[in-house]
């Protein structure tokens, strides 16, 4: 902690040159749609961030979100930056465990009271506190306690943002999202199963550079990354527009790269940046690899029916989402309206695949 190397040293030890870091800050700035002249400020903010600026708590989760950030492209600058800025207090990654780790967390919270960023992955079980505890402390208590002194809270991954897999029907643990518990502070949702690493660093960099949060939509997501659907930015879109659909994963259409809508692609109802930022250092994303989007960043995607049926929308339960909108300080009416819009789309296609004819009518 006190003797932890600063970002500059971490980068140097890993052979990342100054140019490499400047290049990273330039692309991050562009990604966040910030004015290009901000790049040196972003670099400065990342380097000058006091440690620990971030406390990361893991609740009911699979560690996939942490994997996404630590196993991102090589040399993983996302990983290095998180390491230098925060990860003393990452439950999964820190060396200490048990009471020693909790004591360290409490000391950090005290030292940085009111200033640290709280990152949470995983959902919180309300059914029985014993379903998930850390050093004997229930997830709910730990979240409430850590939230008190946080400047802002980031719910990373679909579980923390919307309940995710643990909340899937019949929700055996009574899982809820972060924003269903914390209602008096801004909660940024970075959904995705897992979310894209660059989106996580982008929000962190924004927070450090401007001492504030980026613009959020009615579901608490940063607009700059979740403003468009996958379908809006999909390179297969021209085929969709022409009604050219693959009907099987190995048919002629699939080989020609036609639209995957009829194979269950949820791109049209999924807001995420996969089609532009892509995965594994910008190499590819699911649709480019021949599989439809499964809608992993939407609320309740697990309960949306088959991944391979052309159903346009997840069957979202209205209660938790309305709660989320209220927590984000937005009228619940917005969330209801959004859901209505979704369910309208759903009725349009119900459970039978949409025909080319119908698609033509919709445009």
């Amino acid at each position, binding site marked *: 902690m006190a003797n932890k190397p600063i970002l500059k040293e971490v980068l*140097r030890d890993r052979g990342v040159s100054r140019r490499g870091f*400047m*290049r990273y800050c330039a692309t991050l700035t*562009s990604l966040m*749609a910030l004015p*290009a002249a901000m790049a040196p400020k972003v670099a400065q903010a990342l380097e000058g961030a006091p440690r620990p600026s971030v406390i990361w708590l893991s609740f009911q989760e699979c560690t996939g979100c942490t994997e996404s950030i630590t196993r991102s492209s090589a040399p993983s*600058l996302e990983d290095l930056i998180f390491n230098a800025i925060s990860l003393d207090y990452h439950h999964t990654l820190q060396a200490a465990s048990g009471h020693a780790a909790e004591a360290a967390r409490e000391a950090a919270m005290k030292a940085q009271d009111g200033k640290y960023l709280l990152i949470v992955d995983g959902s919180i079980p309300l059914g029985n506190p014993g379903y998930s505890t850390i050093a004997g402390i229930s997830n709910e208590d730990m979240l409430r306690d850590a939230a008190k002194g946080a400047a802002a809270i980031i719910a990373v991954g679909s579980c923390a943002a919307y309940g995710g897999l643990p909340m899937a029907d019949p929700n055996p643990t009574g899982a809820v999202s972060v924003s269903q518990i914390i209602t008096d502070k801004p909660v940024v949702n970075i959904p995705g199963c897992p979310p894209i690493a660059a989106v996580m660093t982008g929000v962190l960099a924004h927070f450090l550079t401007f001492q504030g949060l980026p613009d959020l939509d009615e579901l608490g997501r940063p607009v700059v990354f979740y403003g468009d659907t996958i379908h809006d930015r999909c390179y297969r879109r021209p085929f969709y527009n022409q009604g050219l659909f693959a009907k099987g994963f190995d048919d002629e259409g699939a080989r020609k790269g036609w639209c995957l809508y009829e194979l269950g692609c949820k791109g049209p109802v999924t807001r995420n940046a996969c089609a532009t930022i*892509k995965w594994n*250092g910008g190499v590819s994303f699911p649709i480019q690899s021949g599989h439809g989007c499964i809608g992993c960043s939407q609320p309740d995607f697990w309960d949306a029916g088959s991944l391979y049926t052309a159903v346009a929308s997840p069957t979202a339960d209205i209660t938790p989402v309305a709660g989320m909108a209220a927590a984000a300080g937005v009228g619940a009416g917005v969330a209801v309206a959004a859901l209505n819009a979704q369910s309208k789309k759903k009725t349009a296609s119900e459970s039978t695949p949409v025909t080319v004819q119908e698609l033509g009518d919709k445009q």
Partner: protein
Amino acid sequence: MIGDYPGAWDGMGEPEQSVLIEIHRAVSALLEDDSESVIDVSTLPLGVADLARLEDALGQGEVEATIEAGGKSTVRETGVSGVWIVEHFSESGSVLAKTIEVCEAPTILRAHREDIEIGRDELGRRLA
């Protein structure tokens, strides 16, 4: 005529004109008080054809460099000295960011103090 730019009237209606005017102002600022500017090309309201016309209008300068620093980046000086086009590419070759920079030399091109120090120390060790 757009503002003080009578020549901007030719080819009026072409969106790259206003960017050229912005660049002209930036170059003047660089000469007057050393202030540098950066324009993120992805934020400009330019289509592919507009952008190609903009690059044509700026022309080709004397410098072209490829940088390998955690990925490929390129720097090209345009025909207007002090106006550079900087591009950062992903592993698969797609453009991650593209900027027009108005300065004596783009930051990414310069050797940085931190790296120079490492180089000196390394060379020193070999000579010791």
